[in-house]
């Protein structure tokens, strides 16, 4: 089904299967200790043609300009992240140790999109990159959808009313009326709600 090898180091990377979304050529921050594990992580990520920036120790505030951040899960991490929980600006992959007590509280606080346990393999590195990136993008899409739904709910009444006015005054059917409003919104680069409000206002004034 796919060309992924068992331990993946060679077969994964740029030649991943396309279902995971595009994970090549991303801006990646690697904030883990610069030991052999860290070197290996950076190397594997570079193989995805990503641009990899290494940062250690964790600065007070991590930079915001990245697509994905691989960060050591430390007690300081939540404070160093350049966003408040719930409003991430990049995919976050928490780097953890496979052995020892799991840091559940830290995981909750940092709200990563994926985890990457040590020791790494090429396959686990790319897997965590793909899952983290996909989860982040999905979260963004859901947030955008909620914002849009909220706005639709708020403007629903005025759009209905504006449609009614157009149907009445211009003898349009409902769909034509809606298309008229949408065309205006697109050409004036404003929201559908704003056009609807303008139609209602001018109708109020002109009668």
């Amino acid at each position, binding site marked *: 089904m796919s060309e992924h090898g068992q331990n993946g180091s060679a077969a994964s990377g740029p030649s991943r299967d396309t279902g995971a979304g595009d994970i090549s050529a991303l801006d990646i921050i690697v904030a883990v200790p610069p030991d052999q594990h860290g070197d290996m992580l950076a190397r594997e990520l570079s193989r995805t043609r990503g641009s990899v920036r290494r940062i250690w120790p964790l600065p007070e505030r991590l930079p915001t300009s990245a697509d994905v951040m691989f960060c050591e899960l430390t007690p300081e991490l*939540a404070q160093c992240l350049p966003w*408040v*929980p*719930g*409003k991430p600006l990049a995919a976050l992959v928490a780097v953890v140790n496979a052995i020892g007590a799991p840091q559940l509280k830290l995981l909750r606080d940092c*709200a990563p999109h994926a985890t990457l346990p040590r020791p790494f393999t090429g396959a686990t590195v790319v897997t965590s990159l793909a899952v983290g990136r996909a989860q982040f993008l999905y979260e963004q899409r859901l947030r955008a959808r909620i914002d849009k739904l909220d706005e639709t709910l708020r403007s629903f*009444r*005025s759009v209905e*009313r504006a449609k009614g006015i157009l149907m009445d005054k211009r003898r349009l059917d409902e769909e034509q009326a809606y298309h008229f409003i949408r065309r205006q919104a697109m050409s004036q680069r404003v929201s559908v709600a704003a056009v609807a409000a303008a139609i209602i206002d001018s109708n*109020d004034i002109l009668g």
Partner: protein
Amino acid sequence: MAIIEETQLRATLLAVDEINQAGGVNGRELAPLIYDPQSDAQAYGQYAKRLMIDDGVTMIFGCYTSSSRKAVLPVIERLNGLLWYPTLYEGFEFSPNVIYTGAAPNQNSVALCSYLAETYGKRFYLVGSDYVYPRESNRVMRDLLRARGCTVVGEKYLDLRAKRGEFRPVMQQIKNVGADVIFSTVVGDSTVYLYQAFAEAGLDARIIPIGSLTTTESEVRAMGFDVAAGHVTAAPYFQSVPGDRNDSFVKRYKKRYGADEPTNMCAEAAYFQVHLFAKALALTQSMETDLIKQSVLGIDFEAPQGRVSINAATSHTDLWSRVGRVDRRGQFEIVQQSATSVWADPFLIGRGNLAAAPAHP
């Protein structure tokens, strides 16, 4: 925003003390942890993060402006906390991580709109502070006004930190367009300037009153009783609400904070929501958000405004709907009120119950 936020904090602490003095919740004391974001929306987000991550808090009480609520929202939603929000707002929101204890538009805007239109006339001038609440609130108001055959003869938004002088030209414009009513969504410290500019312009509140959803006893006190007299506010609660429950609330509030300190709608909501929380906590014996939420939905409480209940369908509160007119002593004379508490309808789905037939007291 300090005028109201301060009173919300005070009322919250009053309720906490009452609960602790009565033996706490199941024998355990409530210990509030307090941060002051200084009306800075971004700081609200940061403090919410700090409360939930560093301090291990799950229940957050507070937020006055919609901007501050919106800053806290992503944090509590991601980390699954519960925000108890004791302020009226513009509606059209439903977060599973918020208990809304202030009025939604169907509980205050509708009554205000009908009272003003019937009493003073149909030409409305809208003036507000320039941020999310006034603009969204006016979107709802326009809809309600139109349904009553009223017209909007002007609309103006001023900076939240607008200076006194900026309200003068607004008054001139109100005179020019011949408004019957001024609907204000000016909030915070500049509220005082709006009403003072009105008085200085020689306008008469008996003829063209300012109608508001946010001007409370606290702003009235700040602007001066004579300046405020005759203006109109719609709210679930006024200090003047009759009854033993409110009398004892007002008495204890004044005893603690001073005889001159009035209560107001936001303080009252801040007060009763802590009691509601304690009631839920006594049942769950756990501060876990999911458990508290489950037990608080549908719960009711004898609040100073009357019996209120958390509406299980919306996480909003079924509240009383009242209209008050400021008298010479800085108190609201209640000129209209609902017969019972009004079902919270934040999305204005059932316009029918908007008209929840106002009965005269």
